């Protein structure tokens, strides 16, 4: 039986003032009792204050903008230091379905995965996912490259909707690729260091408001940069991982 108080939902956000209240309320309704941690990546639209006013979330406001990787890693540090059993990465733009968080936690609770990815491509209609041609091409490239590097088929390497158990949390706290667009590199890092990864089907929504930070030009730059990073990660020796200890919160 999953206790919601063991779950920390990490919501990294940058200028999501228009979406954050809806996101927090969705998560609070879906997982009463869970910790909702909003990591405000030095937004300039008052996202942190807006989140704090709901009274439903804890808010960490970063003093400088670190990018999504840095914000997420901050969330991991928080979750590890407060001894949460599970952490969920949940986007602040309203795309992720809060009612499916529990589907990501279940494989962790049952003990057959260390990281669970919510995949848009395990459902027949592409999980409600509509995107540009270039993004779809990038997703297809990472699917092939990552699956070859870790010798496991991962259908959605760019999904930010992920859940972690304590063992993978401690690893990510120290080694998370804390730069922009870390998701594909994270898959290879975990896969090459013997973490068990599984995927569950999820249905995502369109972004509720605001605009994505990734346009066509940046897409090419990120794809080239991330491909390079992914190959470098695969070439590195394994990192020594501590066995999971049963710490009491």
């Amino acid at each position, binding site marked *: 039986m999953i206790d919601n108080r063991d779950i920390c939902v990490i919501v990294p956000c940058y200028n999501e003032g228009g979406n954050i209240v809806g996101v927090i309320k969705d998560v609070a309704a879906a997982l009463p009792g869970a910790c909702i941690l909003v990591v405000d990546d030095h937004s300039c639209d008052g996202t942190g204050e807006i989140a704090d006013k709901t009274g439903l979330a804890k808010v960490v406001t970063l*003093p*400088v903008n670190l990018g999504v990787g840095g914000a997420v890693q901050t969330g991991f540090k928080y979750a590890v230091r407060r001894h949460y059993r599970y952490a969920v990465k949940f986007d602040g733009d309203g795309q992720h379905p809060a009612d499916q968080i529990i589907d990501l936690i279940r494989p962790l609770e049952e003990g057959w995965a260390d990281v669970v990815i919510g995949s848009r491509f395990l459902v027949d209609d592409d999980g409600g996912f509509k995107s540009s041609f270039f993004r779809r091409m990038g997703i297809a490239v990472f699917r092939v490259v990552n699956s070859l590097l870790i010798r496991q088929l991962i259908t959605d390497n760019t999904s930010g909707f992920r859940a972690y158990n304590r063992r993978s949390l401690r690893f990510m706290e120290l080694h998370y690729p804390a*730069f922009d667009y870390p998701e594909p590199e994270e898959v290879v890092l975990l896969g090459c260091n013997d973490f068990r990864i599984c995927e569950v089907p999820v249905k995502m929504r369109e972004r509720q408001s605001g605009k994505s930070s990734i346009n066509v030009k940046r897409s090419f730059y990120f794809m*080239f*940069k991330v491909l*390079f*990073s992914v190959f*470098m990660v695969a*070439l*590195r020796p394994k990192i020594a991982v501590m066995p999971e200890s049963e710490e009491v919160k």
Partner: protein
Amino acid sequence: MFIRFQIVAIIGSLIYLFIVFEAVRRRKLKEAYALLWVGTGIFFLILSLLWWPITYISPRIGIYYPPASLFLALFVAIFLILLQYSILQSSRSEQIKELSQESGLLRHRVLNLEKKIKQLEERAEKE
């Protein structure tokens, strides 16, 4: 005609790329900062292998000793890399300033809170 120089340029480019890749693989250099190094290394390797762009362009820009063009390209590449690092340094300097200020303000708040806690404890003891 410049075959020995070409061989040295190819070997030099390969060694340069190997050093950069090893630095990234050993986590001494982050991937994001290595891109320009890798890009220039690949560019010089291609120029060294093909060579005809050097012999074609050199006389058209007033350089009559083609290997000198490669050195010119190398200077331009180093300039661009140094410029990238100056831009990064400026950004990091601003971030360090912000973090130092935040740290100072937090320290002030913590010291104030400690003072208040001490006063409350002393008051509780007197009562």
